[in-house]
């Protein structure tokens, strides 16, 4: 009898070794299939906390912190599916925030962004804006020219005003050519100025230079001209710094555009 009991135990123990763990991605793919794969976290941002929503494809929505309920509602209205608060931030999202929002980590590989539902034009505007380095600004006209739609300056402005992922796609780094700071979806012009200030940009200079008729600065040693906030422009010492009001003027002086900031005139200003 005793022996039979031990044997029964042996059998049940042996059978338990047949149990297998489900594959690691199972839960994620189920949630994805049901449209329940979206989560968000609250993280510190440059001018206060941020809600950052993400799904399998990457970051889908960012808003300045506040009431989680209204963020969840907004997400559902925009995406037609719910979003749940996550207990912790996945590593790839954290890396993206660290490098794009804080400049603390080297940028590596593509930024995990979910811009799928946006029209082509808006997506192009956002991806182009993603290239603007921290602490620098470019005019709306630059974005328009870079994506091959030089006359679509206003449309660029509208697309950036609807930017679903501010701070990561730095729409705050796109300003008006005339030096006015321009609109900002994530809290208006003052917020925009504040974010730029946290990146070390001299926001007074933004309007001071255009007010004095200066749109570009060049170096009389290299004969290269830049946008004033370009890191190459900032290296020019005061005695070699040459102000310009238009690309035409730089051309007459025999200057060529900087290859990193690729300065252009706003349309209608070329002469």
């Amino acid at each position, binding site marked *: 009898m005793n022996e039979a009991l031990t044997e029964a135990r042996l059998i049940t123990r042996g059978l338990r070794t*047949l149990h*297998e763990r489900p594959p690691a991605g199972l839960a994620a793919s189920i949630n994805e299939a049901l449209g*329940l794969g979206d989560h968000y976290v609250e993280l510190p941002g440059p001018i206060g906390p941020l809600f950052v929503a993400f799904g399998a494809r990457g970051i889908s929505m960012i808003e300045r912190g506040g009431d989680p309920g209204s963020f969840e509602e907004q997400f559902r209205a925009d995406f037609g599916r719910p979003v749940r608060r996550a207990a912790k931030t996945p590593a790839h999202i954290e890396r993206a925030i660290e490098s794009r929002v804080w400049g603390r980590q080297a940028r590596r590989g593509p930024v995990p962004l979910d811009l799928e539902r946006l029209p082509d034009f808006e997506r192009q505007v956002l991806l182009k804006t993603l290239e603007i380095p921290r602490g620098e600004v470019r005019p709306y006209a630059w974005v328009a020219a870079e994506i091959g739609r030089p006359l679509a300056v206003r449309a660029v402005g509208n697309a950036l005003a609807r930017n679903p992922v501010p701070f990561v796609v730095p729409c705050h780094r796109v300003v008006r050519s005339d030096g006015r700071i321009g609109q900002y979806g994530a809290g208006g012009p003052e917020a925009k100025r504040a974010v730029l200030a946290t990146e070390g940009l001299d926001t007074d200079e933004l309007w001071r230079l255009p007010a004095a008729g200066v749109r570009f600065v060049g170096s009389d040693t290299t004969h290269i001209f830049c946008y004033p906030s370009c890191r190459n422009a900032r290296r020019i010492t005061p005695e070699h710094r040459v102000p310009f009001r238009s690309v035409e003027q730089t051309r007459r002086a025999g200057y060529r555009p900087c290859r990193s900031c690729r300065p252009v005139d706003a349309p209608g200003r070329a002469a």
Partner: protein
Amino acid sequence: MELSHRLADDLDGCFADLVEEHQDLVFGVALRAVGNRADAEDVAQESFVRAYRALRQYPAERVKGMLLRPWLARITLNVARNHFRARRPLADLDVALEVPAPAREEPVVLAERRDERRLWMRLMAGLPERQRLAVGLRHVEGLSYPELANALDRPLGSVKSDVHRGVRLLRAAFEAEQRIIETSETRKAV
């Protein structure tokens, strides 16, 4: 709050918790039913999708009173059955075939039970399908007898007898295996 109550309150918000908590069971039941990981993964995914749709339709009071484990197991068994309706009925032959037959020249390996899992897999593969499923759900996946009866939609006594009969057959096969090992060891010793 209990998961079934939370699901009744906020299905979308809590469904991921259901998946997290019960994926082990659902995948396990699927694996018992279909016999290989790739199909089991498909079946598990489809089962959760069906569970979600069902919960979506049920009135809150019904969801609150649900026994989630046997209910999920039952859905999974149904999905698995449909999954293979068009194919051969005994998918778990795959598993049986993957395991090499006891090699006569290496009884020592078996005797040392270096690969206990293989042994039990092979012994399980020798059971009639109905008992293999019952034993697997009870002893591999850990369903209780009432859960098992509920999942298989059969009377308690009937599933119990399937399990007992299956275990008895396993024991006989196990003992036979031991005898083979002993005999060959004796032969070696001589």
